[in-house]
C-alpha cells in the first residue's frame, strides 16, 4: 500500500467495498487490474491482501484491456477497476481490442462528477461517461444499493462471458461515499 492510501483516510464505504469484492470472488475473478482512485482504495487493498487474487497496478487504464484480454485468452477471469476518466482513456483499447476480438471485459467504473461532486476537475467526465458507454453499445448498470450489488455483478459477468463483449458497472456515490 502506498503512502497516500495509508495516510489520507477518506469516507469511502468499507462495508460496501466488501460487498463488491465478495461479488468478484463469487464470480471467480482471479486477476484485477487497477489504477488508484479515491473511491477504489478499499477494493484495491482487498485485492492486494487476497492471496488468491493477482492485482496488477497499471500506469494507465488502457493497459488493463490488454491484461484482461491476455487473461481471458488463457481462460482466467478478470475485472478492471478504474475511474470514469480512466474508462475514457481506454476507449481505443476497448474498441480495437475487446470489441474487435470479442473479448469480455468486466469494468467496474467509479462514476465521479455526478450530483454531489465537489471536485471541479471531475465534472466533465461525469457528464459524458454514460453517453460514451451508450455510443460504444456497452451494456451498463448502476451500482447504488448494496442489496443488489452482488446479483448485478454476477449478472454482468454472465452477460460479458456469454456475449464476449465488455460490460460496465458504474459505482455510484450512494454506494461508495459516506459523507
Amino acid at each position, binding site marked *: 500500500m502506498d503512502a497516500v492510501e495509508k495516510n489520507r483516510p477518506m469516507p469511502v464505504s468499507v462495508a460496501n467495498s466488501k460487498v463488491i469484492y465478495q461479488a468478484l470472488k463469487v464470480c471467480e475473478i482471479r*486477476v484485477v487490474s487497477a489504477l488508484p482512485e479515491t473511491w477504489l482504495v478499499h477494493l484495491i487493498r482487498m485485492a492486494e491482501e487476497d492471496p488468491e487474487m*493477482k492485482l*496488477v*497496478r*497499471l*500506469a*494507465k487504464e*488502457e*493497459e*488493463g*484491456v*490488454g*491484461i*484482461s*484480454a*491476455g*487473461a*481471458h*485468452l*488463457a*481462460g*482466467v477471469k*478478470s475485472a478492471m477497476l478504474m475511474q470514469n476518466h480512466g474508462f475514457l482513456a481506454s476507449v*481505443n*483499447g476497448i474498441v*480495437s*481490442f475487446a470489441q*474487435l*476480438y*470479442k473479448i469480455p471485459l468486466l469494468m467496474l467504473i467509479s462514476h465521479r462528477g455526478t450530483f454531489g461532486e465537489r471536485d471541479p476537475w471531475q465534472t466533465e467526465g461525469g457528464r459524458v461517461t454514460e453517453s460514451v458507454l451508450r455510443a460504444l453499445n456497452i451494456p451498463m448498470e448502476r451500482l447504488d444499493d448494496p442489496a443488489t450489488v452482488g446479483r448485478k455483478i454476477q449478472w454482468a459477468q454472465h452477460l460479458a462471458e456469454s456475449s464476449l463483449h465488455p460490460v460496465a458497472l458504474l459505482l455510484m456515490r450512494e454506494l461508495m461515499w459516506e459523507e
Partner: protein
Amino acid sequence: MQRLECLRAIYKELESCIVVTIMGAVAAELQSLGHRPNFFYLQHAMGLASSTGLGLALSVPNQKVVVIDGDGSLLMNLGTLSTLARYRPANMIEVVFDNESLLSVGGFPTATSTGADLAEISRASGIPRSSTVRTIAEFSEAFSGAIRGMELSTIVAKVEAIGPTRYVTDLALLENRFQFSRYVRGLRGA
C-alpha cells in the same frame, strides 16, 4: 538487418512459445514463415501487445510468452515497461523491432529516429536485462539467452524500414483469436 531474417532465425524457438505480435509487417511476415495456433496477432490496439503478454504470462506462468512489439507501438504505451518491471514475469520476453518508422502508414519517422532509446527506457523502467542488437548473430544470441534465462528481458532489434507488399492475410482475426485461446487454455487444462 531485416525483420524477416530475425524472425526466421528464432522461428524454431517460437514454435514452443506463446507468441503475441503487433499489427502490420511483423504479423504478415511471421505468418509468411508459417502460422501456428500458439501465435496471436494483435491487428490493432497499438501499444497493448505487451500488456496482453503480461496478462498471459501471469495466467500461464510455466510457459514462455514472447511479445513481438515495434517502436511505433511501444512508444504509444511506454508506461507498459514500468508495469512489466513491477511484476517481472520471469517467463516473458519483450522483443521490439525498431525500424525508426511507422512503416505501414507510409514510413513516417518515430522518435527513435531522433534519439529515443527504447532499451535504455526499458532498463530505466526497471528491466535490467534490456539490450539493443544490430546483427542477426547478436539477435539470435540475445533471444536464445532470454529463452534460457529465468528473467524478464527486453531485446530491441534495430531493423531496416522495409516490409511486405501487403498486410492483410487470409487468417481472419477472430479465427486467430479463438484458435489461439483454445491452444492456451489447453496448456492450462482449462
